[in-house]
């Protein structure tokens, strides 16, 4: 559970110094017992001051117990809701307990937690509200199957066109968000395959997105949820969701943002 630091923050604010931003690392996990422990350990090494919350999305394995055992806060969803709704639960938690920054790291070990400080540095030193770790800015040897690469190229072309900014890896779930973005996501987040669509809604809500290069690993263990049939459904669903989201009333992101002076 988060530290109750609001009183501490007030006293520091009075004395003139800015408090450390309170950071929450959100790890969505569905049956990730093989990789989750290692991910939590690495997150603790990389950002010792951050709180870690694991969103157990109705796993049938020991995901919840492992997260608890490694000292993470655990939110157990009673049944599987999908990655988007699981992440939204994490954003709600971050909003409810007043975190300044939320970081999304996948529970399957694809993302390298040691790169979290780079995401945080860019988030705090630039005007970005959301910083996304991209596999494709620099070639760091990440091999994407050809068909999936094609899908990502199509999506990133479509999204780049819509947000008028070059987005190389819209499907990346390795992200850091400031408070404005957290509040926005806690209120409205797509229920499945949320990442590409959220890049478009961020832009429409006036949130600034920035990508930085990261290295991604093949998953440590567990089962990828991607099959050919699902990939087809994924593309259709995501493109339709993006186009329909453009027809909606423009969303609004409000609130103050923590920044390093």
């Amino acid at each position, binding site marked *: *559970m988060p530290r109750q630091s609001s009183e501490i923050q007030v006293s520091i604010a009075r004395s003139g110094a800015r408090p450390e931003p309170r950071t929450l690392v959100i790890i969505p996990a569905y049956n990730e017992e093989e990789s989750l422990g290692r991910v939590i350990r690495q997150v603790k090494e990389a950002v010792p001051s951050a709180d870690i919350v694991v969103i157990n999305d109705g796993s049938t394995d020991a995901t919840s117990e492992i997260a608890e055992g490694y000292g993470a806060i655990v939110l*157990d*969803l*009673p049944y599987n*809701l999908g990655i988007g*709704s699981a992440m939204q*639960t994490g954003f*709600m938690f971050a909003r*409810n307990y007043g975190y300044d920054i939320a970081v999304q790291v996948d529970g399957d070990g694809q993302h390298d937690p040691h790169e979290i400080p780079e995401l945080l540095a860019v988030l705090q030193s630039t005007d970005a509200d959301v910083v996304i770790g991209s596999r494709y800015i620099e070639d760091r040897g990440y091999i994407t199957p050809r068909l999936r690469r094609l899908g990502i190229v199509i999506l990133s072309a479509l999204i780049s066109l819509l947000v008028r900014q070059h987005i190389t890896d819209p499907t990346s779930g390795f992200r850091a968000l400031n408070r404005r973005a957290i509040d926005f996501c806690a209120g409205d987040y797509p*229920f499945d395959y949320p990442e590409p669509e959220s890049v478009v809604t961020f832009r429409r809500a006036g949130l600034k997105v920035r990508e930085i290069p990261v290295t991604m690993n093949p998953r440590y263990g567990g089962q990828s949820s991607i099959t050919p049939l699902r990939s087809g459904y994924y593309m259709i669903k995501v493109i339709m969701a993006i186009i329909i989201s453009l027809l909606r009333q423009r969303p609004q992101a409000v609130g103050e943002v923590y920044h390093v002076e």
Partner: protein
Amino acid sequence: MLSEIARVEILMTAGPMLMFLFVLELVRRRQLREDYSLLWLATFGVLALLSLFRDSFLYQVANLMGIAYPPAALFVIGFGLTLLVLIQFSLVITRLSTQNKQAAQHIALLGARVRELERRLETQEQK
């Protein structure tokens, strides 16, 4: 034995009427909510009326729709109303799954809060 025409006329009139009464009975027994019964009642009501007053009503409606064979208009209208019922189902399912998602999210958030409170209570009691 009745003629073919008489048989189909009885079927097309009595069928929707019986279904109309069946839906009313379900509502009376509280097995079907009023708001979800309205479209069904409209569907069977319209079909029953069209069949009952075919000379004045059905033939004119078919004529208006440009359908040469009036009984075919019954199928078109019945099918259209059924589609409306199905869209209503999709709306209701979407609303239910959104509420269901929100309930699950609150359960997860509350569960973590309860565990934290229990943990604090334990440490307090130990002091």
